[in-house]
């Protein structure tokens, strides 16, 4: 039954592309809580090419961060990956032993986080923090690692890298801490960088410059980026392709500019509508009605049913599969064409 309505990966069935870096299939990460099983990631498929910048957008609780952590195999108890597969550079990550997985972390796959200050060791100097990674994975000595760290910080437009390397995290601004995390993540030249809400805690101006930094650095190293965010504008600036996540599933996937021009899922339409925009100045904001379902709720059909303006009885009975509506544009809605017109009218 379940199998029949499985989501279809954008690109599934096709021969794996030669430049394919990451392929996630039917990923399920559940949290076993007192209130029941929370299906935070409930059957997610996607792939990522070398050097590609892919956005994963959704509101809090949609499962985007858990998806990101699942790829790193860093989901904390009581969360557990209960199904699916993650292939990275041809290896099945879920089949790797702990030690091999640890060797990939920080060297081939790195991660940066929301709230950078809290993701640094409070009593460790920045220089030691950055060089720790380099020493661990590349066997570089402390001195050489400091030089390399200063070089990376310079690329990140840090005015006096030497001072930053000597500082403790609490002496730096949030933007500077995020630059430090980026430097740490990229210094080993990883193939994939996972940026989990990396700019959400920062000022808008800092956000833009951090995203530019990230772009430049990942270009230098040819690093692919998986960027999770709840901010449409961040996706627009940083990603070529985007996936929209809702209730632990991917509901829409396409190129970024297509998403903004021609959204094919009512949830995406709602998201776009709720972004304040200059051309609608003076009009009241249009927040989306309703709340997302609880992750512990057992929903057979479409998870967006409760809030959907174009819902029909069938949506409650069957889970709409992620299907290709037009070339490269995937939507998990039975009525993708109606999404736009019905709501905008």
């Amino acid at each position: 039954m379940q199998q029949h309505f499985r989501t279809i990966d954008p690109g599934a069935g096709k021969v794996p592309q030669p430049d394919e870096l990451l392929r996630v299939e039917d990923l399920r990460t559940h949290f076993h809580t007192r209130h029941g099983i929370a299906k935070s990631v409930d059957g997610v498929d996607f792939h990522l090419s070398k050097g590609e910048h892919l956005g994963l957008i959704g509101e809090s609780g949609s499962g985007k961060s858990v998806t990101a952590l699942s790829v790193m195999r860093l989901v904390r108890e009581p969360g557990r990956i209960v199904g699916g597969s993650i292939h990275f550079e041809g290896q099945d990550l879920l089949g790797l032993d702990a030690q091999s997985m640890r060797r990939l972390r920080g060297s081939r796959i790195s991660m940066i986080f929301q709230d950078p200050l809290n993701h640094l060791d409070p009593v460790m100097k920045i220089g030691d923090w950055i060089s720790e990674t380099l020493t661990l994975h590349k066997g570089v000595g402390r001195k050489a690692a400091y030089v390399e760290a200063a070089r990376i910080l310079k690329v990140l437009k840090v005015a006096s890298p030497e001072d930053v390397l000597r500082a403790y995290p609490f002496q730096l601004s949030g933007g500077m801490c995020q630059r430090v995390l980026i430097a740490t993540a990229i210094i080993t030249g990883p193939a994939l960088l996972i940026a989990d809400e990396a700019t959400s805690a920062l000022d808008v101006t800092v956000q833009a410059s951090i995203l530019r930094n990230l772009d430049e650095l990942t270009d230098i190293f040819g690093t692919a980026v998986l960027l999770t965010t709840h901010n449409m504008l961040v996706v627009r600036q940083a990603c070529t392709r985007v996936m929209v996540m809702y209730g632990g599933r991917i509901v829409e996937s396409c190129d970024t500019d297509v998403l903004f021009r021609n959204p094919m899922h009512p949830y995406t339409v709602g998201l776009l509508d709720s972004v304040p925009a200059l051309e609608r100045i003076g009009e009241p904001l249009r927040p989306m009605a309703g709340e997302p379902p609880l992750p512990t709720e057992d929903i057979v059909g479409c998870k967006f049913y409760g809030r959907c303006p174009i819902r029909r009885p069938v949506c409650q009975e069957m889970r709409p599969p992620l299907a290709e509506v037009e070339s490269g544009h995937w939507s998990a809605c039975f009525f993708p064409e109606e999404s736009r017109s019905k709501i905008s009218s």
Partner: protein
Amino acid sequence: MIALLVRRTLFLIPVLLGGSAIVFFLIHSAPGDPIDALMGMYASPEAREALRIKYGLNDPLLAQYFRWLGLVLQGDWGMSIQQRVPVLPLVLEKFWITILLTSAASLFAAIVGISAGIISAVKQNSWIDHLILILSVFALSMPPYWLGLIAIFVFSVQLGWLPTGGLYSFSGQMELFDVLKHLIMPAIVAGLTPAAIIARVTRAAMLEVLKLDFMTALRAKGLRERTIVLGHAFRNALPTVVSMTGLQIGYLILGAALFVEIIFSWPGLGLEIYKSVVGRDMPMMLGLVLFSTFIFVVLNLAVDIIYRVINPRVREA
């Protein structure tokens, strides 16, 4: 840093003055007469009076205090009434013997307490965590003098492995080994309660750190779990652990060691305090307690300074 050191050292002066006053008046307000203890009940009233005048015991208490304080500051801590020797050299001699016991007990308490605390925190809610909890509740609830008696009964009387007490035996064995054999039981008995407290504090401090966000960041760097726990988490918990360990060592010197020294006849400050109290040896009592206060205060200062050195947030702010 140096300014702080000077400031804190100067601050010791009022603390010690206040401490000395409290010690002095407290001991003088305690019942019992040193003359009675010294001369027994059959001495003539004249002889008693002569001795009272000799030791200045008829003067107003405040005058006695200031006279004593003046002499103490000049390094004259008086004569022991019981032992008829100067107090200060005797106190210093006993101090080193106590330090030997306290160091051994502290070392035991720190190693066992910190390891148990770290294991407890890392394996939270596992059987080993529960076992450590049970053991530490046991160690906390058993008074050291009782535990000491039981230990003597089991290991000395029944098994005959270790001597019942004292600092060394007169059999002429290898000296260091002999002292160690005498040291092991009192050190463990004295260190057990602090070990339990340090374990509890370390566990709590570690759990606090282990739930922080940067633990995920450390794992994302690809670090080994051992590096994460010992190199980062424990390093962050260290200030809390150090200040609690320092306090415990202070209590060891004054508290547990006193009982343990009496039980194991360990000839240090504690046993001497006990003897001076029983013998109403006031100059000795004063000297011993004042000296212990001094050690406690200095130890606290040391802990404060170490705390600063290992905690950049306090140091650099």
